[in-house]
């Protein structure tokens, strides 16, 4: 499959009064055309910053892309001028955000908010943009789109607004859709509808999706591949099937065990990951997860683990993969890791 996006060793920092926050520290992953990848991790792990870096939407100052490369459709994003970037944003990459209640302009009709990008990027006339906006709204599953078009955002519910956001983001048929926690602010039944809608539109428009979330249920529903981030680094990545069936990193285990399960005894306490993420003003020299990891060894605190490839695109950064590490059983499915030694 052809690569659409290639992120290599991306480093993003924010320079604040308190010092430099190393928000993203050497993230690499890629995305093929028509594929969807989920970036998962807890709040503050750098997943949103990674997405914003791809769109070049990091507020600057204080944010800076320090190093690394982002190649999108053959172009190096980090080297483009602002003007060149404007031509890509909206036209070739669309983005939807977490909170649909505040992401739409309250003083502009929905129609104008959708057609704005069309008029700018595709040079459509107002009339053409209008019919395309209408088409997008019905694609996004909004009933009575003719009537709804001329309404303002406050006349829509949260779920409907997120549909409008999707219509805006996909209006110009971008190659890439970045969805930054698109379902977090919605209630559960609406979440499922939005995920179904994104899946449906992905197959219709052949858009690649980067889904940012901390909800593994959402990941399972939509993503082909998963990138697990922790403290600004990728700790594990691989196809969704492999990652769910055979997770290798203790942090991934923790995330998977923290998902509430319908088939478990309701009196059983939910599993959690003790401790808090490291201070990104001064990230630890070793594995960032070591202080919270139940399997941490001495080396984990001292040195960053290498990336180990387990085949089929499954990669993990963990010292447990080292040949000298003690044999460990995954607490998620009981399978042995590092080759079963």
């Amino acid at each position: 499959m052809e690569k659409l996006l290639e992120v290599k060793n991306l480093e993003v920092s924010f320079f604040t009064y308190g010092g430099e926050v190393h928000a993203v520290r050497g993230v690499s992953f890629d995305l093929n055309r028509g594929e969807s990848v989920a970036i998962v991790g807890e709040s503050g792990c750098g997943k949103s910053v990674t997405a914003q870096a791809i769109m070049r939407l990091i507020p600057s100052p204080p944010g800076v892309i320090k190093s690394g490369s982002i190649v999108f459709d053959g172009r190096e994003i980090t080297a483009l001028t602002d003007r060149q970037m404007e031509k890509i944003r909206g036209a070739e990459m669309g983005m939807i955000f977490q909170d649909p209640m505040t992401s739409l302009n309250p003083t502009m009709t929905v129609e104008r908010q959708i057609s704005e990008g069309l008029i700018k990027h595709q040079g459509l006339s107002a009339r053409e943009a209008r019919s395309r906006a209408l088409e997008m709204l019905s694609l996004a599953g909004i009933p009575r789109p003719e009537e709804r078009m001329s309404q303002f955002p406050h006349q829509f519910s949260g779920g409907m607004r997120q549909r409008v956001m999707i219509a805006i983001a996909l209006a110009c048929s971008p190659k890439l859709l970045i969805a930054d926690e698109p379902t977090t602010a919605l209630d559960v039944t609406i979440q499922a509808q939005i995920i179904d809608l994104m899946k449906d539109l992905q197959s219709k428009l052949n858009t690649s999706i980067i889904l940012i979330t901390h909800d593994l249920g959402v990941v399972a529903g939509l993503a082909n591949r998963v990138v697990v981030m922790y403290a600004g680094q990728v700790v594990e990545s691989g196809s969704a099937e492999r990652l769910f069936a055979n997770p290798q990193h203790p942090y991934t285990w923790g995330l998977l065990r923290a998902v509430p399960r319908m088939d478990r005894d309701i009196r059983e306490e939910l599993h959690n990951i003790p401790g808090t993420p490291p201070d990104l003003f001064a990230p630890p020299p070793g594995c960032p997860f070591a202080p919270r990891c139940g399997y941490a060894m001495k080396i984990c605190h001292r040195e960053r683990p290498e990336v180990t490839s387990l085949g089929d695109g499954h990669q993990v950064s963990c010292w447990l993969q080292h040949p000298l590490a003690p044999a460990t059983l995954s607490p998620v499915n009981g399978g042995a890791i590092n080759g079963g030694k």
Partner: protein
Amino acid sequence: MTRYIVKRAGYMIATLWVIITLTFVLMHALPGDPFLNPKKVPEPIRQNMLAKYGLDKPLYQQYFIYLENLSRGELGYSLRYTQRTVNDMIRDGFPYSADLGVRALIFAITTGLTLGIIAALNHNRGWDYTAMLVAVFGVSVPNFVVGTLLQYLISVKLRLLPVTGWEGFKYTLLPSFALGLWTVALMARMMRTTMLEVLNQDYIKTAKAKGLSSREIVWRHAIRNAILPVVTILGPLVVNIITGTLVIETIFAIPGLGRYYVQSINNLDYPLIMGTTIFYAALLILAIFLVDIAYSFIDPRIRLVGGKE
């Protein structure tokens, strides 16, 4: 909408009535009467004068007579400028005041909003500090000081513009500037605050993600939302500028309504006090009403309140 306007009109008339009554009572609570003040008028003549103007009647009767005349739009004769009706005086003086006020307002709104927007777009940089310096100066220095300083520096020292009078465009510059400066400052500060707030909103991020340029984002998405709170204070500001003309008209010797307003109180010129007060009050009430209407056009969320939902 029509229902809303009718309802509002009712409130407006009620407000005006309260103001009329209060002014009437307060005015008559002042010691003395119009013919007691300047030179000694012999007592019998004074009594005759009071009788002629109906001031010998009980106060409540005077009040109802006044209301009756007012309902016909008659504000009565001035007791001081005996040949002129208050209606005439307002008709003659107000155009000057309004002219000055409108000029000052246009200057204040355009300059104030521009300064505020520039400041917000250059947050914590040179332009921001410059604009806010102007704003702090404008808020802290009273307009009569600005007025006299301008007269001294620009007219007397540099001889660029006339000192006083109202005979052409050149004459309007200094008074409009002096009158509008305070409002410029207020507008700039408010616009800066609301603009900064709006620029941090999620929908601005959405607009950026659409690939709009900074200029398109500012013009289409930011200004309209940022201007809403500023429009709210526009009503009181209009009035502030109108009442501000009292001082400025005196300093720049402009034949407006302002000076009558001040003099009438010193002279206890009852009809003139009532007439000018009611006139200004009505203007204020109208200005606030118009701002509310304007608000509903700028902010679609307001429109619903008066409607079916």
